[in-house]
């Protein structure tokens, strides 16, 4: 991958909302060059989507609960863990699935409106899958940092004096 492709990706990873003309100016390129590059990276599925990080806790009436579930499974013959993982990640409630080394096999992040809702999903859908041996559920109590972004960072205002040598 070329250096300027990485530069572009880093820019839009930090801010998917950055306008094309600004990206062009920042990188010292033309707008059409940037557009072309983005098209290419989308086609190659390097860029998979554009999302916005929202602090739902700040939105009234919009409670949300996240659980991290440790899942032990018996891998399916011929497919290893991949088939089981797929059975799990297809559920829309599931936000992330990772194969782990250590005491359990899959780490599954599940979101729901209430603890009850998540509990229901785990007992009815997840733990009942043939290859799932056991689940251990940990509910998230508070988010401090997510995907590199510190939530509730009250401390980010500019502390510099306005004019200095």
């Amino acid at each position, binding site marked *: 991958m070329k250096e300027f492709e990485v530069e572009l990706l880093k820019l839009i990873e930090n801010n998917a909302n*950055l306008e094309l003309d*600004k990206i062009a100016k920042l*990188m010292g390129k033309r707008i059409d060059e940037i557009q072309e590059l983005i098209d290419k990276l989308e086609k190659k599925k390097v860029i998979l989507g554009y999302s916005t990080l929202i602090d739902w806790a700040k939105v009234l009436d919009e409670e949300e609960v996240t659980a991290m579930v440790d899942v032990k499974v018996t891998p399916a013959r011929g497919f290893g863990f991949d088939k089981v993982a797929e059975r799990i990640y297809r559920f829309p409630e599931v936000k992330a699935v990772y194969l782990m080394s250590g005491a359990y096999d899959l780490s599954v992040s599940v979101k729901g409106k209430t603890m009850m809702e998540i509990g229901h999903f785990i007992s009815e859908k997840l733990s009942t899958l043939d290859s799932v041996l056991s689940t251990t559920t940990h509910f998230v109590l508070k988010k401090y940092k997510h995907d590199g972004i510190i939530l509730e960072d009250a401390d980010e205002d500019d502390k510099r004096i*306005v004019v*200095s040598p």
Partner: protein
Amino acid sequence: MSQISYVSKKVDGLKPSGIRRFFDLAAQMEDVISLGVGEPDFVTPWNFIEQSFHALEHGYTSYTENAGMIELRKEISTYLSKNYRLRYDPYDQVIVSVGASQAIDLALRAVIDPGDEVIVVEPSFVAYVPTVKLAGGTPVTIQTEAEDEFKLKPEQIEAAITPNTKAIMLCNPNNPTGTFLSKEELEQLAEMIEKHDLLVLSDEIYAELTYDEDYTSFPSITGMKERTILISGFSKAFAMTGWRLGYAAGPAQLIAAMVKIHQYTMMCAPTMAQHAALEALKNGRQSVNDMVESYKQRRNFIVSSLNEIRLKCPNPGGAFYAFPSVEATGLTSSEFAEQLLQEEHVAVVPGNVFGANGEGYIRCSYATSIKQLDEAMKRMKRFVEKRI
């Protein structure tokens, strides 16, 4: 009672800094977007801060050796060798100072006798002339020209030489112009410097912040190491202005002279800052590279934006300053800066505070978030359009 002034003539005679006056104006105002700041907008990388906590927790709260902790001097020496192929003995050719500011002061005081002249190249950092005067020397200023992109030319050195000339202050890349001197350009200056047997104080605090070409440290030029005091520090590239940590490297005799002054007037640089700097040199490369990439993008952004709104601005090769001409508006530097502040609440620094030839220019620092820069450019566009 009569008002006797106890202030020395030397200090009384110093001009108040033009920056100071501007600061007072801007400080009274709300929602100012400041392009007037000569320091990074980044907070010091967390691992440096954390290392300093660690040192404090373990009781490192006392003085260090006068010249700085030997571990830090060793790291500085390694850093200079890796990055600029310079070899300095950490035991007697490196001193850790309270910012590059103190290193400049120490170097000047270590070499100046009354009557000695020091060449200062302007527009430049506002501290050079006063520091030369305070050290008892006589500053002789050279004005670089806009049409030379504010690059110093060897003939200009020659013209400033008198029998009393002892030293020349160089700054590359330069504050406020962002001017970057290439190896060839430095070699031409070196020839002239050698011819007149000058000592060089080379302020390279912005050396890491260069965007287009490889950097050449002045003492790495053949024959220059023996006559150069290299001055640098952690403020800019490592985002550590408030820690007050810098250093100088040079011939052992000169460094010893600087240590002598330092031991009587300062004892040592702050201990906790020295620990943070140690971490910065050992594990700070990625952070520095990330910040440099970001400065480069903002440089591209501000330079093209300024040119679009007819504030003509050449592409500065280093530091984090753009130095556009305000000629198109028909205003002087100060008028431009003051009216811009009053009308649009954008702070820039009038170019004339950095030297006579800075008149007609303003310094815009791009050590500011893209969002802020974008807003500042919109406001400046509106301001300029009213006047053209």
